[in-house]
């Protein structure tokens, strides 16, 4: 199924109409702040869609905390990326031009995080350079992903990680750690002569993108 999702706010019906005209779709999903369904712009889109005998799916998100908003939009996109009745993958396209600046920017990050095709429609359409299907998983080796999955925001001793990692040598784990540090994904400290490791904020974002909830 072809799904068109769009960020949306009051006064944005023309942006969504632009996207509807340019992108083929069978289901329309609007993502916006709570109360979106009460807006006159939404009613115009809903009445217009009603002419084709279809409803509009509304996904309300909280827009106070930026990264939480990215997480909420990611969850919405993941939900609509598959057809719930058949389990098949939907052809999902996201338009980021509607709604507040915060909403549009958070949607852009979510699109890159999940490898969802995205565009910016406002008079003209600009496709965003998201590589379809390429997610955070593609950027890391299996060993790096395993290392990240063992960590949270709290410090853990490297020796404990080595045991949990199950690698043939401590050096192999240290090599993975060095590579991740170069990417600014880890923070390290020495306590009582022992190295401890935790995810940096960027590392936590990677961890979330890989589908693991962080402890901090």
């Amino acid at each position, binding site marked *: 199924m072809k799904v068109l999702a769009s960020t949306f706010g009051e006064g944005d019906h023309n942006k969504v109409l632009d996207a509807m005209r340019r992108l083929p779709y069978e289901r329309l999903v609007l993502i916006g702040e709570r109360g979106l369904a009460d807006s006159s712009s939404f009613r115009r889109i809903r009445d217009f869609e009603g002419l084709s005998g279809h409803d509009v799916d509304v996904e309300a998100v909280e827009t106070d905390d930026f990264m939480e908003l990215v997480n909420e939009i990611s969850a919405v996109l993941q939900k609509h990326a598959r057809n719930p009745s058949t389990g098949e993958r939907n052809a999902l396209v996201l338009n980021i031009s509607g709604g507040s600046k*915060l909403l549009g920017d958070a949607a852009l990050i979510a699109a890159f995080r999940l490898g969802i095709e995205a565009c910016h429609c406002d008079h003209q359409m600009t496709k965003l*350079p998201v590589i379809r299907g390429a997610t955070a998983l593609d950027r890391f080796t299996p060993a790096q992903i395993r290392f990240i999955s063992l960590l949270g925001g709290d410090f853990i001793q490297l020796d404990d990680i080595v045991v949990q990692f199950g690698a043939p040598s401590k050096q192999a784990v240290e090599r993975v750690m060095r590579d991740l540090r170069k990417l600014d994904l880890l923070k390290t400290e020495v306590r009582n002569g022992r190295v401890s490791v935790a995810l940096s*904020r960027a590392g936590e974002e990677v961890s979330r993108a890989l589908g693991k909830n962080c402890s901090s």
Partner: protein
Amino acid sequence: MLESNMVAIFGTLGYRPKSLIPTIRSTPDVDKVVFYCGADKKDAEAVAKVADAKKAVLDYCRTMKLAVDAVELDDPFDFKSIAIKIRTDIKRHKREGKEIAVFNIAGGTRPTSSAALLTCILEGVPTVYVHDVTYEEIRLPLLRMEYNQVLSKEEREILKILLKNRSKEMTEVELARLIGKHKATVNHHLRNLIAKGAVRLENHKKDSRKKIVRVEESTELLLGDDE
């Protein structure tokens, strides 16, 4: 002109200098500020408000003895042009060996902010947002979009050739000839590129058996001026 090893911060500016100045304050050893602004020229009130904000930031930077570039955008609603402009500027700064400490994307029009964010993802520039109410800086933990990791060497080569020849109507056979590879090999890579959303095939106007290979416009933003 800046010396090498100098630190610059970038930002987008709308009506509120308070959305940009906290980043100048919180970034150590800043030597230069580059900010992008612009308003709908038909909206006199918006033009006046942006001019006031620009003057405030310029005054602040001069008082702090910081070099400053205020970049006036021709059309602050033209997402693609803004993204290309900002990316070109960032690449130039990088080539000159200057460090871009942070990019503040809080101000400006929605397309300006989103275009700046896109550029930060593509270029791996640290990015901050300033909260509308508290003016607290929020650091965005972005992952750089490394197209080298998601496109093979052959796929990148094909995209660069298609971008260079985008005004021409090129078939698969012509593309294979230009690259010097077998048609079946090029066909394999094209299928992958179509699946990734980087190219599309269109029917030839005169010969329905042929397909024209078109590069998606997003590929220009993806590869930047690396070709």
